[in-house]
């Protein structure tokens, strides 16, 4: 089905572990984004990508790594998870054409214990 999908939906990991959150979109949108949602902070941009092999930092990039070898995939890796990274993570995409409305995935709820 066309759309943007995130996996897993829920993840529990231990402090210090590496964990990767997956994001896949079927529209060939140029732009992809990773946000985290925390109470009192709303949605904060972690990383974004304008095209394959082009990525850039957002507001809160520390502790995260991204890659975009293919247009449709934009994985987010926590290299050494910390409890402060417990959050709900949303991936989004946007077509290149002047419409700034994003389409979001359903989110991944990550708990770091």
């Amino acid at each position, binding site marked *: 089905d066309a759309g943007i999908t995130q996996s897993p939906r829920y993840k529990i990991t231990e402090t210090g572990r590496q964990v990767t959150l997956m994001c896949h979109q079927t529209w060939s949108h140029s732009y992809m984004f990773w946000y985290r949602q925390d109470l009192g902070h709303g949605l904060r941009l972690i990383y974004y990508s304008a095209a394959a092999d082009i990525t850039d930092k957002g507001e809160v990039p520390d502790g995260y790594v991204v890659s975009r070898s293919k247009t449709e995939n934009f994985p987010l890796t926590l290299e050494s998870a910390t409890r402060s990274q417990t959050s709900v993570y949303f991936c989004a995409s946007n077509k290149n054409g002047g419409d700034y409305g994003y*389409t979001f*995935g359903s989110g991944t709820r990550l708990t770091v214990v």
Partner: protein
Amino acid sequence: DQQVKQNSPSLSVQEGRISILNCDYTNSMFDYFLWYKKYPAEGPTFLISISSIKDKNEDGRFTVFLNKSAKHLSLHIVPSQPGDSAVYFCAANMDSSYKLIFGSGTRLLVRP
């Protein structure tokens, strides 16, 4: 320092009445503003937007007003329905950067 602020964490409104959600911003370079709606366990969905060259945009029951001099925008929902109960995020963008800066959200409850 938050560039986009939603100072009301929650709002409760009777069904059929008007809901007014407010948003303030600090960066005068923002030139495009959006509202998103989010239900529990789902991603945010785009609701309505407005360019800085306009002061009003309407889409059915939803109207967004922009007051650039006050750096303030508001979302009006008339009439409010129980299905409108959700968290509403205000977002802003500048220079066609495609990076959206979001507010912290307002939880709207529409009582039957």
